[in-house]
């Protein structure tokens, strides 16, 4: 006690004790975000529909909107996010060394990443699969016809492994040309360095828009892998994982219950108990996360429900026009199924 006066020490102890009483679960990450006043989010360097900056440096996209929803939930302001663009290669190292609070960068959830890298995947936000794009002039209609082809892709992704597995399983030969950045993959493909471009199907739709003549290229029907894309955090802060996971579940449940950014305030008066619990009219679910009652309502109001986010960035409201497909709700033919808030 030589170093600081007794009164300060006593005050610190008191603060610690009171805050312990006030909130059940305490996440060091959430506390830091509240103290700093912003969320730090690791995102793609530029992938139309998922994360891309406009001319003024404002980021938008599917992965961006998840960060915005988290900022709305924690800080009540979806704009309080600092984005760190990160390449496929360095993303996990950057997350492990604490460059950002959450990695929201179309990242495939695999066992080795979850277990060996010391990461905690929140949940899948988008169910993707690896596909191939080829020039129409090649007259290829199936990936099985790609025997002997040269294929361009990114280094440091699951695509290299899937590609090797697929061609090996089908007894086909291929040559791989792997670049570090998307821009170079696309330039090489556009210059005829390779016959096919492979990455997650959503990425193919996005990259095709950047080609000189998008209509001259076709995406083959085969999906050769399971790519559940989702955000990830570091091990060791489960309460932070709870906040992130239930924010996503709240957005999905909101779509299922018909709560949108436009009607969220009217829905507060809804007699439906599920909606009342979601929006914090009943129960104390927000408090149990260390947040306020209306946590989910804030995210829905500022960013929209899952369906709105999807359509705005990837679906009919976007250039990509990707159909919901497997990413539809479970009761509409998809696999999106969020646990109930109760």
């Amino acid at each position, binding site marked *: 006690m030589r170093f600081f006066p007794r009164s300060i020490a006593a005050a610190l102890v008191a603060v610690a004790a009171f805050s312990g009483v006030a909130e059940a679960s305490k996440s060091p990450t959430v506390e830091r975000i509240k103290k700093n006043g912003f969320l730090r989010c690791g995102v793609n360097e530029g992938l139309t529909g998922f994360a891309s900056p406009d001319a003024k440096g404002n980021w938008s996209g599917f992965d961006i909107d998840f960060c915005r929803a988290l900022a709305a939930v924690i800080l009540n302001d979806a704009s309080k996010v600092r984005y760190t663009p990160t390449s*496929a*290669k360095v993303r*996990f*190292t950057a997350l*492990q060394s604490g460059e950002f609070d959450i990695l929201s960068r179309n990242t495939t959830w695999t066992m*080795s*990443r979850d277990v*060996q*890298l*010391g990461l905690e995947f929140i949940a899948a936000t988008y169910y993707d699969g690896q596909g191939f794009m080829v020039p129409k002039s*090649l007259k290829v209609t199936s990936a099985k016809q*790609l*025997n*002997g*082809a*040269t294929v*361009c892709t990114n*280094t*440091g*992704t699951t695509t*290299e*492994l899937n*590609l*090797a*597995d697929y061609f*090996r399983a089908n007894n086909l030969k*291929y*040559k*791989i*040309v*792997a*670049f*570090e*950045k998307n821009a*170079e993959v696309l*330039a*090489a493909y556009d*210059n*005829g*360095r390779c*016959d096919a471009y492979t990455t997650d199907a959503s990425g193919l739709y996005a990259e095709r828009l950047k080609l000189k003549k998008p209509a001259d290229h076709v995406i083959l029907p085969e999906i050769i892998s399971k790519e559940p894309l989702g955000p990830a955090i*570091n*091990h*060791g802060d489960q309460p932070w994982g709870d906040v992130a996971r239930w924010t996503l579940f709240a957005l999905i449940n909101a779509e299922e219950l018909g709560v949108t950014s436009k009607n969220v305030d009217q829905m507060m008066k809804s007699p439906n108990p599920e909606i009342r619990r979601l929006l914090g009219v009943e129960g104390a679910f927000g408090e149990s996360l260390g947040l306020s009652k209306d946590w989910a309502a804030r995210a829905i109001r500022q960013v929209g429900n899952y369906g709105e986010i999807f359509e705005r960035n990837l679906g009919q409201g976007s250039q990509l026009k990707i159909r919901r497909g497997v990413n539809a709700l479970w009761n509409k033919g998809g696999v999106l199924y969020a646990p109930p808030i109760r």
Partner: protein
Amino acid sequence: MARPPAHRGRGARPRDVLYQALLLGAVAAVIAGMAWNASHALERQNIASGFGFLDNTAGFDIVQTLVAYDETATYGRVLLVGILNTLLVAVTGVVVATVLGLVIGIGQLSSNWLFARLCRAYVEILRNIPLLLQLFFWYFAVLRALPGPRESWSFLGSAFLNNRGLYLPKPLTGPGFEMVVLALGVGLIAAAILAHVRRRQREETGRAGPVLLPVLGLSLLPPLVALALAQFPVSFSWPALAGFDFEGGFTVLPELIALVVALSTYTASYIAEIVRAGIQGVPKGQIEASQALGLKRGEALRLVIIPQALRQIIPPLTSQYLNLTKNSSLAVAIAYPDLVSVFAGTTLNQTGQAIEIIAITMAVYLTFSLLTSAAMNAYNRRIALTER
């Protein structure tokens, strides 16, 4: 009255040793602290560590491998493939850069005004543009200019150039080829002995018999005879269009060509300056003296100026060789599968063991650099001015 200054050496010695020991201890403590902190943090976050991953299956393919490799090979094998691919670029680049740099360096001093200015312009342009931009220029400029596989440029129907690479016939050896290699070895040794004997003769008597023809004959005749005796046990695998691409022969990747061209033209601009400075550093009297002896310009350059200039050229040249080797890691930008791309890139991403992999990669580059330095220093000692 004038006392000799206190002799510091002896009196201060124990104290100096103590300070040095303390400094060493402090450095060691910092390193140990960092290592402990890293391993502790990895353990706390439940991140895998150790070198066991080198025995795990890699599962991905590599487009250019100088040793046998497929998807079922281990990460340790990936490391070897990466090292060899990096060495291939570094060695080729060093050779091309040296030749080019020497020509342009001497060219800058040419009495031909136009040639000298062109060499000067080369140096100024190439060394003042960032290497990465030059690399992209060569890669994408070359790719764009080349035709697709079906419209390949053909050389006599046996070699082809297109945007997938340069396809050359690959010699395959049949039975009896070992004899040819053996004969070549014997011939080369005999030629070396003859050259040595002739040099001794010349140094002792001032005159000697012919050298060039007998040396050529000794080194070429035995293998040719062996070839004929074994009924030419060499066949070729010819590249031929099949499906998407050429098959057979061997392929030089466009990435490799672009990388070697970019690295060697860039480094050559620095080497040219080193060569020019080395030559201009030779005292003018040496040139005048060689002219007075009646040596021709070429002879003066070869016998008098270059040997003296070399002493000033070798040390900075070494550092250019090191730069070229290290710069080859830019390969990752254009998809050439070098050490950084396949090992510090793909392998790192799949295993997540950043500390181990980056440490191994740094150790490899350090070894390359130290070996290059050691070889160049040894050469430098040999050509250094020996006082007799």
